[in-house]
């Protein structure tokens, strides 16, 4: 039998039919929905006179729009409130399980799925959100879809998809102290660029990847989309199984044993072919930071912004526009430059491990007076855990407060907006123009780097504190 990649194994097992000269009909095991990309899909379904075909395979949670304070009160923004209420009404009507605001399972959809055990190896999983790639950390084929496709999944539990090409990214070696999964992923994206993996599904391999926790793996897979990949995945192993075991929706008893036997087969066969391969060394990775307006514009925190001469002529206009927006200069360091805001949270770095990392660095220090900091847990469970572990006290002593869960300042659909012209070191996933509010300037970095900036008020190498 032909050697198969991990991706082939999962994808091929879900093909209902191959359309001649076209895409596959792909069966979806788990559909995650939220309030922003689902309402038009529900109304489309309604207009066709159809019901949700497999409501038990769908879970819902409002996250993009929700405020991060006073969640017990009605949402003030009328449009946000309307979207959240529309989600609730649609879920009730269609028999879909929803974790509404204040529900103990509420949170960012990509944080909630894994922590409840909904996300499992070998699954196909989609959501109307590009960071669905997060769930690939479990050895699932998980990717973001548009609203028309959300409607397709509602109607038939399937979507029409052409099979992407396969890429393997291997990172061998050991990450240095102060260098985290976020730095690893920003490093890879800086190498490949924002379109470098377009058309591909990526498998991450190598000892540096294997040594990551599940939280770290989710961070890496989460950002696969930022280099254009359809999704990223990591073969499940003991770390994966250990994480899933005992979670609310994880298989139990005999079913667990049966699933485990299957999950252990989920890895790329010896000799399986990839359409593209890249290999990097963990030792080459420093704490990373972005200086521009796409996630590919990243560098080691002590490095210089590229010189004008190093930019290809065709890319120069976009590059110049980007630096003008950031008010940074060619060929200069940004270390020591002023920071106004710090955001820790999002589906990239709003997990308990991220809050622990942030707290570990700020412990015994004080927040810089000039900094506004938003520390936003990814879910109610993360919030609860942060309280139980005493992280909240550490944060408060250092001058920070923990807010309530949601996507928050990652895309600023709620009130948490960075004002025009201000600089924000953000643990989120996108530094696009206006992403954190019109005119906001975002620098992507790890929770440790965010912590160092929160204490000093300037861009700081977190290794100085370790």
């Amino acid at each position, binding site marked *: 039998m032909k050697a198969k990649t991990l991706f082939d194994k999962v994808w091929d097992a879900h093909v*209902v039919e191959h*359309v001649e*000269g*076209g*895409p596959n*009909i792909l*069966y979806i095991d788990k559909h995650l929905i939220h309030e*922003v*990309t689902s*309402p*038009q899909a529900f*109304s*489309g379904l309604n207009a*066709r006179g159809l019901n949700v*075909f497999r409501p038990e395979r769908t879970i819902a949670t409002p996250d*993009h729009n929700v405020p991060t304070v006073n969640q017990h009160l009605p949402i003030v*923004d009328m*449009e*946000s409130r*309307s*979207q959240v209420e*529309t989600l609730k009404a649609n879920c009730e009507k269609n028999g879909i399980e929803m974790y509404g605001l204040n529900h103990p399972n509420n949170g960012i959809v990509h944080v909630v799925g894994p922590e409840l055990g909904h996300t499992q190896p070998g699954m196909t999983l989609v959501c109307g*959100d*590009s960071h*669905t790639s997060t769930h690939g950390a479990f050895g699932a084929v998980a990717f973001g*879809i*548009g*609203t*028309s*496709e959300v*409607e*397709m999944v509602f*109607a*038939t*539990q*399937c*979507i*029409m998809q*052409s099979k*992407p090409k396969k890429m393997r990214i291997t990172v061998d070696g050991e990450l240095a102290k102060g260098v985290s999964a976020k730095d690893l992923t920003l490093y890879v994206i800086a190498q490949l660029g*924002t*379109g470098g993996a*377009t058309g591909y599904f990526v498998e991450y391999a190598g000892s540096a990847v294997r040594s990551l926790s599940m939280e770290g793996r989710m961070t890496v897979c989460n950002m696969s*989309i930022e280099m*254009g990949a*359809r999704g990223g995945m990591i073969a499940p192993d003991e770390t994966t199984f250990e994480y899933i075991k005992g979670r609310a929706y994880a298989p139990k008893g005999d079913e667990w044993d049966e699933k485990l036997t299957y999950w252990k087969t989920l890895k790329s066969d010896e000799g399986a072919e990839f359409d593209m391969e890249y290999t990097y060394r963990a030792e080459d990775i420093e704490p990373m930071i972005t200086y521009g307006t*796409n996630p*590919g514009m990243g560098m080691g925190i002590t490095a210089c912004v590229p010189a004008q001469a190093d930019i290809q002529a*065709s890319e120069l*206009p*976009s590059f110049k*526009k980007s630096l003008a927006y950031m008010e940074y200069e060619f060929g200069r360091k940004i270390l020591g430059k002023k920071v106004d805001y710090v955001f820790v949270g999002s589906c990239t770095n709003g997990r308990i491990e991220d809050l622990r990392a942030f707290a570990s660095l700020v412990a015994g220090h004080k927040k810089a007076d000039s900094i506004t900091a938003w520390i936003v847990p990814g879910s109610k469970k993360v919030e609860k855990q942060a309280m139980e572990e005493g992280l909240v006290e550490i944060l408060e002593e250092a001058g920070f407060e923990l807010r309530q869960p949601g996507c928050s300042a990652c*895309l*600023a*659909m709620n009130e948490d907006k960075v004002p025009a012209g201000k600089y924000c070191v953000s643990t989120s996933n*996108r530094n*696009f*123009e*206006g992403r954190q509010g*019109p005119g906001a300037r975002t620098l992507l970095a790890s929770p440790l780097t965010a912590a160092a900036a929160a204490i000093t008020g300037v861009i700081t190498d977190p290794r100085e504190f370790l």
Partner: protein
Amino acid sequence: MSVDKFTYLESSCVPLPNENVDTDQIIPARFLKATSREGFGENLFRDWRFSSSGEPIKDFVLNQSEYSGQILLAGKNFGSGSSREHAAWAIADYGFKVVISSFFADIFRNNALNNGVLPIQVSAEFLRKLFKAIEKDHSQKVGVDLEKQELRYNDEAFQFEINPYKKDCLLNGFDDIDYLIDKKAKIQDFEG
């Protein structure tokens, strides 16, 4: 949503040579709060098109009367970032039927096709020539023949690729859901 049939289009182009145009620029997140599909064209490229006080920004191509048409000509890696289909809705609602670029982000390409907007990928060289031609003559017409998968202007032509299934959908104005619903028995068999 069923889409309009697409067979042949001849139109002038709106040139936007920026590379890596992400969907946050096409439609910023704060405009995603609607629960219907209508009206997104008003906010297409909102922050490039209007100042914070709502005044049109003269430099931006959508505000320049010498450029118009149903074809958006875009730089490399168009539509990267968020999966929001609102970006495709905004482009369609504004009146574009075709987006030409040398490279598209995957999800955007799917979203566009699902909304009757044809994303056409051309070579970097052809794109450069097209930008030049439009710079020289703002009213330069480009013909898009979906049946022949051909893009034409003056004496230049480019054969573009499109998935045969998607081509069929566009030519006939039917969509994936109609197709999938016909396959329901097969889907149930698959579920076992």
